């Protein structure tokens, strides 16, 4: 039987990687559960409410996008729009060129991964340095993040220590405290030497034009304190209607992602620094990125645009836990990725159409989602679509149903086969294909019971008397 790519990847995953991924996701899952249940008596009500706010926001983006743009312009922010990754990279490059900037420090942003920004800038002679510890390690290893919140969930301390040694960041030492201290010392001078700080945005308030960033390490804070230009890459679905929505969403995001009540650094940024402030950007740019999002918005799978990238669905998913994020072959792994990646792929949907099948449909992703996205329903819709577009990837590992389809579509043919099926007992075993022979060597064929249901149904109708008045 043909296997799906994700099965093959999982089968070849070294045991220590699987253990790292399993341990990391399990602890994330436990932390989330503890945080939500100790804080709230009915956390599910909050998830549903947050889901309704985000659903309202995406269904009214045509109102909120011009509104947030107007607020940002009034706040002194320069606003740019990018249809795709190339255009977004082009905006960043042009902003840097206009400032004569060569060096960028980058706080974690999934959009920059999506558009391959680092690669684009490096090809044009610019430095683009990751500052989140995990992302920094990914960068020096020329690897890819395998988890949205814990990018190096698949690595252990020994691999990291070896990478640091190779990069000249001190002699081999695999104590996490030492690794972190070395990164601290190395990166702070990089921040101070950089011209541009790049961030994403977790939320954007249409009401005030504030962008909200959350990090535990404080790397985006440092990027926006040390540099003269701040560029934020924002997916258009990040907008929330009002500032008041942020209270609920921040509480849910931190608890769902890491089990914290709030992330260590939560930043509300609405423009360049004030006149009396010695540190920070003189100009701020926001680049609104489409890159497939308006296509998802037009799709009946649009609830996936509610996603706030907390990773709770990755942590709980029995498939993710066994396969790791790299098995999903895209920037967004796990259940959310299995929905979002095929949709964002556009014309290349058939290449990603197997991802929605990499799910047990157990529903756990929906149960933990802080914005209550019905992920299993969306996966089913995409499975169906995979079949409709005749994607080979979506069909892998599905047994052929052609003969059954013909039978099931014709009641007369069905009746004949059910009546005569008993003859199959006469089928000589030596003519069977190899798999069938193996089966009958230790077991007999079951007794044919075809047609019994129809007989029972007919009989039952005859026996059931109409109700007397």
């Amino acid at each position: 039987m043909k296997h799906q790519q994700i099965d093959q990847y999982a089968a070849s995953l070294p045991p220590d990687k699987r253990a790292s991924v399993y341990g990391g996701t399990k602890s994330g899952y436990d932390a989330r559960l503890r945080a939500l249940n100790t804080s709230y008596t009915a956390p599910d009500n909050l998830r549903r409410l947050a889901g309704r706010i985000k659903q309202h926001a995406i269904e009214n983006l045509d109102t909120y996008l011009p509104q947030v743009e107007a607020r940002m312009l009034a706040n002194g922010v320069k606003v740019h729009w990018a249809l795709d990754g190339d255009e977004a990279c082009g905006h960043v490059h042009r902003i840097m060129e206009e400032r004569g900037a060569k060096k960028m420090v980058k706080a974690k942003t999934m959009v920059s991964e999506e558009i391959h920004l680092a690669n684009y800038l490096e090809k044009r002679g610019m430095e683009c340095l990751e500052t989140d510890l995990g992302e920094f390690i990914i960068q020096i290893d020329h690897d890819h993040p395998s988890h949205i919140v814990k990018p190096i969930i698949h690595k252990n301390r020994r691999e990291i220590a070896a990478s640091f040694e190779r990069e000249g960041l001190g002699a081999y030492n695999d104590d996490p405290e030492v690794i972190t201290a070395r990164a601290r010392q190395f990166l702070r001078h990089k921040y101070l030497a950089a011209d541009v700080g790049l961030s994403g945005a977790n939320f954007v308030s249409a009401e005030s034009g504030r962008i909200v960033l959350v990090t535990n390490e404080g790397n985006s804070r440092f990027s926006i304190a040390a540099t003269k230009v701040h560029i934020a890459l924002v997916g258009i679905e990040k907008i929330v209607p009002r500032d008041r929505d942020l209270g609920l969403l921040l509480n849910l995001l931190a608890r769902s992602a890491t089990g914290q009540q709030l992330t260590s650094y939560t930043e509300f940024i609405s423009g360049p620094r004030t006149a009396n402030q010695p540190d920070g950007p003189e100009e701020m740019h926001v680049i609104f990125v489409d890159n497939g999002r308006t296509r998802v918005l037009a799709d009946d799978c649009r609830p996936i645009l509610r996603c706030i990238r907390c990773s709770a669905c990755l942590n709980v998913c029995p498939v993710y836990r066994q396969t790791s994020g790299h098995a999903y072959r895209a920037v967004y792994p796990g259940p959310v990725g299995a929905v979002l990646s095929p949709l964002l792929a556009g014309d290349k949907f058939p290449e990603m159409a197997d991802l929605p099948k990499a799910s047990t449909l157990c529903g756990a992703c929906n149960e933990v989602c802080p914005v209550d996205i019905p992920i299993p329903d969306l996966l089913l819709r995409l499975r169906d679509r995979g079949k409709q577009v005749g994607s080979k990837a979506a069909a892998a590992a599905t047994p052929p149903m052609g003969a059954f389809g013909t039978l099931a579509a014709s009641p007369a043919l069905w009746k004949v086969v059910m009546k005569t099926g008993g003859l199959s007992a006469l089928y000589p075993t030596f003519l069977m294909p190899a798999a069938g022979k193996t089966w009958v060597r230790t077991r007999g064929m079951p007794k044919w019971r075809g047609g019994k249901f129809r007989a029972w149904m007919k009989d039952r109708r005859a026996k059931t008397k109409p109700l007397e008045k």
Partner: protein
Amino acid sequence: MGTSRETILKRTADALAPLKERAAYPDFNDSVAVMPALDRAGDLWAIFSERAKLVHGTPLSGSPAVLANWLREKNHARGYCDPALLPQFGEALAAAGCEVETAFDRARVDDYQFGITRAEAAIAETGTLVLTDGSTSSRLAALAPWTHVAVLKREQIFADVATAVASLPADPNVIWCTGPSRTADVEGILIEGVHGPGVQVAFLLE
């Protein structure tokens, strides 16, 4: 220049046009996500202190001498002090043998063991400090040294996150610090002091 903007707005409008009905903005109370266990009428500094300790923050209170002696105990001898706080803290810091500068020289970033700045506010529910461009004299001084001290007054403490969101100051850079800078990227092990402070002090000046 305007074309991508027009295209994205048009695609958005076209994507939403077929919807017969748009999801309504739900009706909810601002305090919906406030933890029920919070005693909003209680001593907010006491609640703040308790919650700050849970996230490994360091709440301290008292006169400038209390802070100066605490810094000395930690072997912190050189640091930054917000010029606006110097009249209150200068004497005590000097008496404890702590040298301070009132301008942060980024070329000597490693020379500062601590930074003392003013907080805009605090949030009792989560043990969070609120910093802004308006109140915090230097973003870098509140971030780069190992120890950051945010000086706070009793009346600046919000009860909960919802109130703090409702009262977000009109400042381009509002930063909520909940405990020290931290990471768990290496094998999920918690390490404090990644890029920002390893010790985050909330100092209630009394």
